[in-house]
């Protein structure tokens, strides 16, 4: 049997895959956080709750209406995105002129309400979501067995992350967005509808969280608490990456997911806290984050 540092290679690769999958969700969520923060200067605490909402929308579509995974993959982000737009218009838009911390506190309250509602109706136990038939089963890669759906999660998240990055870097809308991130009032003076841009950005960020949620539904159990535990880790990811760069958020997400997976192999007791430890080390060496600009 082949071993790496005394660990069987199957166990090693298995945890690497788990890490890569967790990393996929870290990347998608920290990407959404970075996009929202870049323009709105709001840290979206409700991001975890919106991820949970995406998973529940998928679950309810299946259980109540019999709508399967593939339509849900489109519908869940749209529904979560629209709910995000409503929140931005009704509440967040009123908070742009005050200290950014109020945005954090508002979205924290929103997260509590969303989580509380789903806890009230569905309890704390998880609900299973079946893997879509097309992606059921697995592939034997020779050195390990890869469940198809997990492979799809990694590929899909890469596609969505890079897609978002391309939209922001290469399209006209993206260039408005980047310009507004640099200087909001100047862009407005050029006749761009900045309030609309802000609304759309929050909608897009929420939709990304919803998309991550429906992607996660077959991997993890669909549970009201799935978002709140994740969002704190994602915050640490964001601190490590620095929110200055979109690509930085994506790369850091995958890296920390893999680091967490590998810790599970070599020192399982520390796997819960390794991301936080890395965050502390990065704060010592590069306080602005790996990809951040010094403020």
């Amino acid at each position: 049997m082949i071993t790496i540092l005394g660990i069987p290679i199957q166990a090693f690769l298995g945890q690497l895959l788990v890490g890569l999958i967790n990393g996929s969700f870290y990347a998608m969520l920290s990407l959404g956080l970075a996009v929202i923060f870049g323009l709105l200067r709001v840290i979206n605490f409700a991001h975890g709750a919106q991820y949970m909402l995406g998973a529940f929308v998928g679950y309810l579509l299946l259980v109540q209406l019999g709508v399967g995974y593939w339509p849900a993959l489109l519908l869940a982000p749209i529904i979560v995105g629209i709910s995000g737009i409503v929140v931005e218009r009704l509440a967040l838009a009123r908070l742009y002129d005050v200290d950014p911390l109020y945005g954090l506190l508002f979205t924290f309250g929103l997260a509590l309400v969303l989580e509380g509602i789903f806890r009230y109706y569905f309890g704390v136990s998880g609900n299973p979501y079946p893997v879509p038939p097309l992606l059921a089963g697995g592939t034997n890669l020779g050195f390990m067995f890869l469940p198809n759906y997990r492979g799809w999660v990694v590929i899909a998240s890469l596609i969505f992350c890079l897609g978002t990055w391309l939209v922001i870097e290469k399209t006209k809308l993206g260039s408005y967005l980047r310009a507004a991130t640099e200087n909001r009032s100047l862009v407005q003076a050029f006749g761009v509808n900045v309030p609309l841009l802000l609304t759309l950005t929050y909608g897009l960020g929420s939709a990304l969280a919803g998309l991550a949620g429906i992607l996660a539904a077959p991997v993890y159990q669909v549970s009201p608490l799935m978002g709140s535990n994740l969002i704190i880790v994602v915050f640490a990811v964001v601190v490590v990456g620095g929110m200055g760069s979109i690509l930085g958020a994506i790369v850091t997400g995958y890296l920390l997911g893999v680091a967490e997976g590998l810790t599970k192999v070599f020192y399982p007791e520390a796997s819960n806290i390794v991301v936080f430890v890395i965050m502390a080390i990065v704060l010592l060496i590069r306080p602005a984050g790996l990809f951040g600009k010094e403020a």
Partner: protein
Amino acid sequence: MAELTLQEARAQTTGRVERILIVLGIVALIAAPFFVYPIFLMKMLCFALFACAFNLLLGYTGLLSFGHAAFFGGAAYFSAYAAKVWGWPPEAAILLGVLGAAVLGAVMGFFAIRRQGIYFAMITLALSQMFFFFCLQAEFTGGEDGIQGVPRGVLFGIIDLHVPLNIYYTVLAIFLIGVFAIWRIVHSPFGMILRSIRENERRAISLGYSVGNYKLAAFVMSAALAGLAGATKAIVFQFATLTDVAWQMSGEVILMTLLGGIGTMVGPIVGAGLVVALQNTLATSEFPVTIATGIIFMICVLLFRRGIVGELYARALRRGNNKG
């Protein structure tokens, strides 16, 4: 963060009405256990002190910590362990909790003050979550069960804390000492420097203050006082569990401070009283506490960011200005 200006803040401290109200408040607290269930009052007092300690950091230094549960709950564990396993008397156990919280505060503060504003909030949240996982896995905390059946003990070898009135007046004394300490800190030259950091950090730096050291000192003091509240709670309720170190607790103390009034002395006490009363009311009903908490959060942020007491002050100030 705080919307009160220095001038407003100074105006608050000179009110004669306020002094009368404080004396009345203390008298009411002394008389209260004869009319209200003492356990409920002690819970209120512990959380009020916790919120005041938190407000020292948010209201007077402008730093939003999302990790104060680590100090509150950590101190609860330390003192519960000392009282139960080592058989320490309550005063020593509480002191250990305070010291433990101060050390935790020094370590967390050391990392957190490297960033400002929103990052500071996220870092404190992440570090306290790390402490939560530590408590979940460590031997001495008892994991999911926590530390149960902590003896209240005999204070200074003479006051038996198992007598309801004895423990109540002990908690009241701790609360008053803690709040007085915060009041002294806020109104000292040190406190004025903290406020100048809150109002304009760069100006404070250019005036020659080593802002980092001041922030760290404020962080440690706030952590130690939060620890005093947590340690006292552990002795009163005779247990320490994971609930006290979880991130929801950090959220709760923010809510108490925000609801009562950030940057006011009385605000956090009022906020803590209201939140604890609300939780007690909802505990017997079907309605989930988290939803209520979240709704109050959103309403506070959208409609009255000064908090209840802050709004009252602002109104009084406006009236005063109109007269003058």
